[in-house]
C-alpha cells in the first residue's frame, strides 16, 4: 500500500499496482483481418458445434454425468484417458513449434483471452465511440449519458458472457435440453451455477482484466522466451531505419523514418512501446504493424518499419527469402518430426481402436468347486463395455486348458455405449489338470463383426 511518508523501498515493494486503463485505438489492416478471421472461425466452432446433432445425439458432448465423452462417432470412457493425455502432448508440442517459428502466434490470434477481448472491444467501440471519445467519456463526470452508455456496454458484455457460459455448460450437459430448461427456469442448480461462473469469468476477463491476464496470470508469457531463438519471427521495430525519430522527419530527410506519431503505442492492447524492443508483455498481435504501415503509407515511406522479422535477419540484413529459409533449422525440424510421429501414431491407434473393453474379475467367494459329473468349476465376473453406439452381441469363449469350456449358451447382449457385468462359469473335466493355478484366456468376440474382439487373461484354480 502506498502511504504518504513511507520509505522509498517500501513503496517499491508495493503489491498493488495502480492500473491505468488502456484504451487501445482500433486498427485495420492485414493482421487485424487475420485476427478477425480467427475470431470468427474459433467462435463459430465454439458456439456452433454444441448445437450439431449426430445419430440423434449431440455431436460433441462431454457427458460427465454419465462419464462418457462423445466426439462424432467415437465414445470415450474414463479408461481412454490416454487419448486425452496424447491430445495435451500434441497441443503442447504444437505450441512449442509455432512459438519457435513465429513467436506468440497463439496469443495474438487464437487465445480465448485475445478473441473475447477483441469482441468486447469491438462492442465497446460501437457503444462508446473511438479511442478519443472513450478517453473523454472516462474523464467526464458521471452524467445520465455516461451512465446510459456504460450500462448498455456492460449489459451487452454480460449478455455475451452468459451466452458463452451457457454454451460452455452445453458441452457437458445436452445443450438442447438445457436450452428448453432455461426458458422455464428449470435448469439444475449445478448447471445454473456453472453458466453463471463461466459467464462471469468471461465478462471479467474480457471486459475488465484484459491485458492483466496476459501480463500477470498467463504462464505461457513467462516461459515463451525459452522457446525463442535468434531465428524466431518476432514483431520488431527496425531501429536502424527508424532512428533518430522525430515529428518533422518528413521535412528533414537524413533523419529516421519513425515520425514519432505514437500510433504503435496507442493501438497496443498491452500498452507497451514496441520501439523499446521485444518485451514479455508483447502478445504478438501485430496491431502496431498494421498501425505503422498505415502511417508509412500516408507519409510516403516504405511499409515495414515495424514488421515480423528475426534477430538474425536484422543483424545480417537478410532478405525475406533468406530469413524464411532459416525457419527450417534443427529445432523446428525436430519439433515437427516428433509432432508428426505422435499425431500419426495416435491416429493409427484411434483407427484400430476396438470398441469393446472387458475386465475379468475372479469371484472371490468360491475359488474352486466340484459340480455335477465331477467337473471342476471356477466362477468369474466379466465386465463387458460396449464402447460403440450400436447394441451388440458377443460370444464368449475360453482357452488355455484342454477341455475347458463355458457351460450353456455363451452369448451376451450389451446396449450401445453401455456396460454389463455378467457372471461366467468355467468348467474343466476332472483329471485334466493338476491342482494349482493355471493360466487361461477369455475370448470375447462380436457376433456380427469378428474384428471386434478382445482377449483377456485370467487364472483357473484347481484345489
Amino acid at each position, binding site marked *: 500500500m502506498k502511504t504518504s511518508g513511507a520509505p522509498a523501498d517500501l513503496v517499491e515493494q508495493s503489491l498493488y499496482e495502480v492500473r491505468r486503463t488502456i484504451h487501445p485505438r482500433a486498427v485495420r489492416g492485414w493482421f487485424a483481418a487475420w485476427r478477425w478471421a480467427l475470431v470468427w472461425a474459433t467462435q463459430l466452432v465454439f458456439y456452433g458445434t454444441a448445437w450439431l446433432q449426430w445419430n440423434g445425439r449431440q455431436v460433441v458432448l462431454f457427458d460427465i454425468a454419465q*462419464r462418457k465423452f462423445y466426439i462424432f462417432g467415437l465414445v470415450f470412457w474414463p479408461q481412454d484417458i490416454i487419448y486425452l493425455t496424447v491430445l495435451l502432448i500434441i497441443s503442447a508440442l504444437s505450441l512449442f513449434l509455432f512459438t519457435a517459428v513465429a513467436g506468440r502466434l497463439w496469443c495474438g490470434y487464437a487465445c480465448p483471452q485475445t478473441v473475447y477481448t477483441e469482441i468486447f472491444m469491438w462492442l465497446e467501440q460501437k457503444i462508446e465511440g473511438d479511442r478519443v471519445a472513450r478517453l473523454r467519456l472516462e474523464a467526464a463526470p458521471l452524467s445520465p449519458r455516461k451512465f446510459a452508455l456504460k450500462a448498455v456496454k456492460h449489459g451487452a458484455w454480460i449478455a455475451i458472457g452468459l451466452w458463452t457460459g451457457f454454451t460452455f455448460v452445453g458441452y457437458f450437459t445436452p445443450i438442447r435440453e438445457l436450452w428448453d430448461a432455461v426458458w422455464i427456469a428449470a435448469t439444475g442448480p449445478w448447471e445454473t*451455477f456453472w453458466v453463471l461462473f463461466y459467464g462471469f469469468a468471461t465478462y471479467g476477463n474480457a471486459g475488465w482484466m484484459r491485458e492483466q491476464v496476459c501480463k500477470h496470470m498467463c504462464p505461457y508469457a513467462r516461459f515463451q522466451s525459452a522457446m525463442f531463438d535468434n531465428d524466431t519471427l518476432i514483431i520488431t521495430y527496425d531501429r536502424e531505419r527508424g532512428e533518430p525519430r522525430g515529428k518533422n522527419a518528413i521535412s528533414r530527410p537524413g533523419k529516421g523514418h519513425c515520425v514519432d506519431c505514437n500510433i504503435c503505442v496507442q493501438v497496443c492492447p498491452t500498452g507497451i512501446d514496441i520501439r523499446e524492443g521485444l518485451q514479455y508483455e508483447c502478445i504478438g498481435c501485430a496491431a502496431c504493424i498494421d498501425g505503422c504501415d498505415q502511417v508509412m503509407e500516408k507519409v510516403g515511406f516504405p511499409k515495414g518499419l515495424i514488421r515480423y522479422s528475426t534477430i538474425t535477419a536484422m543483424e545480417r540484413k537478410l532478405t525475406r527469402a533468406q530469413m524464411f529459409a532459416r525457419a527450417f533449422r534443427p529445432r523446428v525440424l525436430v519439433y515437427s518430426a516428433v509432432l508428426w510421429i505422435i499425431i500419426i501414431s495416435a491416429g493409427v491407434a484411434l483407427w484400430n481402436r476396438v470398441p469393446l473393453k472387458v475386465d475379468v474379475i475372479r469371484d472371490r467367494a468360491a475359488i474352486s468347486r466340484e459340480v455335477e459329473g465331477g467337473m471342476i468349476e471356477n466362477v468369474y465376473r466379466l465386465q463387458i463395455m460396449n464402447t460403440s453406439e450400436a447394441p451388440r452381441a458377443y460370444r464368449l469363449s475360453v482357452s488355455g486348458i484342454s477341455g475347458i469350456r463355458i457351460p450353456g449358451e455363451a452369448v451376451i447382449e450389451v446396449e450401445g455405449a453401455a456396460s454389463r457385468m455378467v457372471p461366467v462359469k468355467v468348467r474343466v473335466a476332472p483329471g485334466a489338470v493338476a491342482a494349482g493355478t493355471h493360466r487361461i484366456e477369455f475370448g470375447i468376440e462380436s457376433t456380427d463383426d469378428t474384428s471386434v474382439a478382445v482377449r483377456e487373461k485370467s487364472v483357473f484354480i484347481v484345489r
Partner: protein
Amino acid sequence: MKRTIWILWPSFIVGGLGEVLFFTVFDPHELYLFGEPSTLSRMAVYTIGFFLCWAFAAASSAFTCFLQGGSREINR
C-alpha cells in the same frame, strides 16, 4: 489485487487439473461419505470436488505467499 491473483489463479489451474485426474480415476457414485454411500448427483460431487481442490491449492498458495515476506517486512 496482484496478491489475490497470485493465490487464486495458479490454484485454479492446479485445482482443475487435480479435479480432472481424480474424477477420471474415481467415479463419484463409488465414493463413501463418512462410511455412507453419497446420495449426491455426479454433477454435485464434481462441483464440490472442484472447489475443494481449488481451496486446498489456494491454501497452499496463500501459505507460500505468507512465508515469502522478507525479514524487513516482518521486523517493521
